[in-house]
């Protein structure tokens, strides 16, 4: 109970401080909403992540040059930010958010984290809690959630499409060198399922790509040659498992790779599902 009170006071204080400073923050226990930051300085690098304990959930960082940047905090699996993994280097792609410090560090936001598949045992830095370093407001602490019996918010149902139907594209983004479909991707796939069923699709085209990421230091990081094929095959399998007829599909992996320029390169690591009436 004492811990909860302490946590409440800390979060409350932080919220007040942040609200005074920026004037646009969410209430206690609600997630911090950062500005879009479309004009922030792009930054891309590969390094070992570091995790720092706090009185509640830990903060995640990565170093570039002499600077340790804040990446995000531990959240639930449905969150947009998927934290790094110790024992692995991460590719960090995003923009520096001027005027902000979170968990005591400058912020990269928006940020895309790719956990590189191969292990690196040197990536093992855990920093103990330091008084004064606390995470931004967040919904769930290190213990049970507060969801309980409260019904989860459901997205409003999409209106049914009306004829004449048109071809629609659903674009999925992947982390570097990965074909794993996380929640953000599977939600879009589900939308593609829905649309294909609603319009009784006559054809579904799946095209998968691989790409490079241009690091801030000028190095080009290129995804493995087979990864586009792997993305395409997995998507094809998913659609077949969902009950779509094999005859509907045209599945391809784009040859070569899309070349990144250091700005939003994560969007090039993609697959496009085209649902045709």
């Amino acid at each position: 109970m004492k811990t909860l009170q302490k946590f409440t006071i800390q979060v409350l204080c932080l919220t007040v401080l942040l609200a005074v400073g920026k004037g646009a923050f969410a209430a206690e226990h609600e997630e911090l909403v950062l500005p879009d930051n479309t004009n922030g300085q792009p930054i891309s690098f590969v390094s070992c992540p570091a995790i720092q304990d706090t009185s509640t959930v830990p903060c995640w960082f990565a170093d570039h040059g002499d600077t340790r940047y804040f990446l995000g905090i531990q959240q639930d699996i449905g969150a947009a930010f998927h934290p790094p993994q110790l024992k692995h280097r991460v590719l960090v792609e995003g923009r520096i958010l001027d005027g902000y410090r979170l968990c005591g560090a400058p912020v990269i936001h928006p940020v895309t984290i790719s956990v590189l598949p191969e292990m690196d045992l040197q990536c093992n830095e855990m920093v103990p809690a330091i008084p004064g370093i606390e995470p931004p407001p967040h919904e769930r602490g290190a213990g049970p959630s507060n969801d309980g019996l409260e019904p989860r918010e459901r997205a409003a149902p999409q209106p049914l499409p009306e004829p004449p139907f048109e071809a629609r594209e659903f674009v999925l983004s992947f982390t570097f060198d990965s074909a794993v479909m996380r929640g953000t991707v599977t939600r879009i796939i589900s939308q593609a399922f829905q649309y294909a069923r609603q319009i009784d699709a006559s054809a579904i085209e799946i095209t998968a790509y691989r790409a490079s990421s241009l690091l801030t230091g000028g190095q080009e990081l290129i995804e493995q040659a087979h990864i586009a094929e792997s993305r395409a095959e997995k998507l094809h399998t998913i659609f077949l498992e969902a009950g779509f007829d094999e005859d509907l599909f045209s599945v391809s992996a784009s040859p070569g790779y899309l070349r990144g320029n250091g700005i939003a390169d994560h969007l090039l690591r993609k697959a496009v599902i085209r649902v045709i009436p």
Partner: protein
Amino acid sequence: MKPKITIGGCLLILATAYSLAQESRIVLDQWWSPGQDEVLPREKAYPNSQGMLGVINDDAPVVTDGHAFFEAIGSNGRACVTCHQPADGMSLSVATIQERWQVTAGNDPLFAAVDGSNCPHLPQDDAASHSLLLEKGLFRIPLPWPGKDSHGKLITPEFTIEVVRDPTGCNTHPEYGLQSANPTVSVYRRPRPVANMKYIASTGGFFNIKTGMPLDKDPESGRSVGMNIMSDARAATLRVQARDAARTHLERKEELSEQQLQQIVDFEMQVFMAQSFQTQAGSLSDNGATGGPLSLLEGRRGLGDDFQTPVFGYFDVWRDASAAAAETPAQQEFRESVVRGNDIYMGRSFWISDAVHINSIGLGNPIKRTCATCHNMANTGMDLAPGYVDLGTTNMPTANNMPDLPLFKLTCNDKAPPHPFLGRVIYTHDPGRALISGLCTDIGAITMQQLRGLSARAPYFANGSADSLREIVDFYDRRFNIGYSQQEKQDLVNFLSVL
């Protein structure tokens, strides 16, 4: 209207039986033999080392004469009940196994060569040939390699398997081993409890949130399933599991009939079990406490890692000493320990690290969470999502020392995503889910078990590597460097003992 539960009323008689049982470790009347043909009552309590286990048949008393779960419907004299004994929480404790060896001089069908011995080629009248079963409660699970996916299609594994150590001789045997005409990997596992399946044999959504791929499907209905039934999630449904078990464990030659299948599944879906009485705490369902099997009949299904609807909220009433009405200070003390154990389970955070399908699914490695993060399924403590996780019970270097188990070296190919926290070369006693999926990521991933009726069915973990509840707690403490105090450990043990 269902008859009123009378487990509480039977406690005095059962406590006497329990005392007798303690005097003699052999409790013959608890063993349910195939073809015993008695009626399994709607409710019954069985003594165990911690008190009593309650078993409820929610539909009605079960007439076992001619019942496919209780009759020896295979060729080796076993029935389903042989390895899923009511007194043992619908699983099988090593104490029971040892008693059967003594009573039958090793001739019980339980010790059938096919999987009740370390390997069928060994001399079957020698206890040493059954050492894994007699000492750790482990049955041999021979799995074809490569295996087949849920559609029956041969998988293309991402790794190769070498046998590094073969103490049973089975994995290198010319007839039964990896290089035989029918390449087979023999792993050794505990029988899982077949009860409380209302919660466990659930249907799912479409995606497995841990892998991002579709959940397996019920081959008959086409509906997605929860993938929580077996240690390696190889059977999508209880029907599939029953067919597989009849063919393998029971050595039945022909397929089960539709009537037999239905009888087995119907029974499994309506039988509930939980510890109902604890020698120090007393009845687990008195004075507002809701432990025991009764609350499982109408329990809520879903997530329980939240403050409002905790996984096991049965003993909150014991927080209030006046309301709990303990009869003695010792009883009050034990009940308070149980409450503390529950609070540790729900709220004591620690660093969960290097556990594949927990730390590798977008939550981060490590995550600062609690027991209930993974053991989140209301009323069972399993994982609501498919619960196969590499906790480290079978993979080196975290597995307990088990020199009597085989040791395999698995090497992942260059194209495959490696095991996230062990890399491309993994040494393991049991590759777990990877023997079914062929994925490096799945090496050592074992479906977590329910936490009910634990006092009736030691040893624990799928490979029997924890002889006691304390050893479970010690394993976690070591594995995740938690730093539990002695009091915290005892509180957790007491809490687990009353589930």
